[in-house]
């Protein structure tokens, strides 16, 4: 089984971090994986995305052009990638920031007011992790068990105090 995921939004929303977190969780599960960021003259407020592939077999191309799972955190990303999702795939939309509904009826869609939920739990920068919690719940791209171990890998020791709030954000999304 292979899941190809595309995570897209504005620079500064933590889309690369969210992908990295998923990649580490996949690594801990002994899965094959790749993580490929967009790179370039990007900055906070510009667009950013990353391709994450989780598989039981060696990963071929690390570039995701037809995602099974699309997670979008701004309107330009939804406009750009909505049509690329494979039929029967998943689209996760941060509905606080994206007001429109998706146009397709052949994919499973989840609207999560992640940016609002993040403010509600006093973690305004962690909408990304709320989205990821929901992605894991609905797609099973990685298991949710021992999810805190993956957080240990991506949250540096210097910022260890942020682990708990990241975990809370994941849980908020998972249980939304």
């Amino acid at each position: 089984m292979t899941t190809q995921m595309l995570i897209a939004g504005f620079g500064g929303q933590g889309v690369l971090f969210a992908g990295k977190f998923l990649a580490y969780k996949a690594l801990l599960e002994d899965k094959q994986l790749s993580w490929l960021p967009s790179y370039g003259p990007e900055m906070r407020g510009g667009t950013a995305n990353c391709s994450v592939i989780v598989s039981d077999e060696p990963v071929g191309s690390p570039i995701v052009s037809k995602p099974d799972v699309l997670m979008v955190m701004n309107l330009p990303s939804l406009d750009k990638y909505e049509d690329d999702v494979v039929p029967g795939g998943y689209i996760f939309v941060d509905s606080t920031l994206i007001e429109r509904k998706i146009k397709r009826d052949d994919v499973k869609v989840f609207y999560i007011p992640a940016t609002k939920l993040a403010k509600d739990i006093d973690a305004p920068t962690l909408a990304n992790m709320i989205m990821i919690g929901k992605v894991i719940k609905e797609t099973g791209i990685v298991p949710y068990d021992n999810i805190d171990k993956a957080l240990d890998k991506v949250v540096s020791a210097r910022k260890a105090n942020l682990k708990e709030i990241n975990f809370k954000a994941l849980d908020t999304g998972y249980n939304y």
Partner: protein
Amino acid sequence: MSEKVLMKGNEAIAEAAIRAGCLHYFGYPITPQTELAAYMAKRMPKIGGTFLQAESEIAAINMVYGVSSAGKRVMTSSSSPGVSLKQEGISYIAGADLPALIVNVQRGGPGLGGIQPSQSDYFQATKGGGHGDYHLIVLTPASVQEMADLVSLAFDLADKYRMPAMLLADGTMGQMMEPVELPDEAPNMIEKPWAVTGTQMKREHNIVNSLYLVPEELEKTNNERFERYKYIEENEARYESFMMDDAEICVVAFGIAARVSRNAVVEARKQGIKVGMIRPITVWPFPKKPLAEAADKVKSFISVELSMGQMIEDIKLATSCKKPVDLCYRVGGMIPSPEQVLESIKKAAGGNE
């Protein structure tokens, strides 16, 4: 081997180089390889090594020339326009028969080009690049694991044959993260009796130089070097063969192009097309033998490249043009999709029926 960690390709190169005993790095920042220099900047001071951001790429490669003369493992890294600037120094290093590692994380060209991935420095890497008759050993990683593994191999080969080696990667390979196991073994350091380390008044002076004003002498050094190259071509070509046993079409691709092509080959097999792939791991020496052998079995070849068609010439030479070679390519920072490669495979399959 240690436990698997996630690393960017650029970081894996840096860590693998340190573990291969390279304690001297000279460079100048350029996208998409800057993480490599950043990693070195962070680590080298902690382990008693040298990280030096030179005033230019030309300065950096000449610092490499100097450290290598003293017999130490040394490297530099850059991306396409920066590697062009280094060519004079690389030619001097080759002319002085010195080992060194040069990393090129390629981006689109020519000129300042773009910053997205490319393989269009193939000619420059494999045919010499600077002035004069010389080659580099050129290794082409296709995964983050290979980014690490080929670094220590590059240092070993460079030391063994006293010539510069190049790791020819691209923006995708540099930026992507994959699980990687870094080597724990102690590096293979060999004696370098030619190094300029001070005579202690106990031996004759060693001279490291690329200047020979007597043409007979210069001719002799060139001939000697090409004897070595001949041996390397016969003994050091590396490649991976994928689904070639009964293949009627042979895809040839390296680096990111091979990763994309692998998807296409797997998909074409599902559709009943007998296709395989030969993935060069060294592009100099080019794996001529497996390609020549394949030319007796397959109907045609497809060269998949992120260039206007550079490796295709080596495929034609290696196979003595026995079978047609198609080209499947994107350039300028674009990457062929697996679907595009699959179309080329289907066209080749259909065209030969």
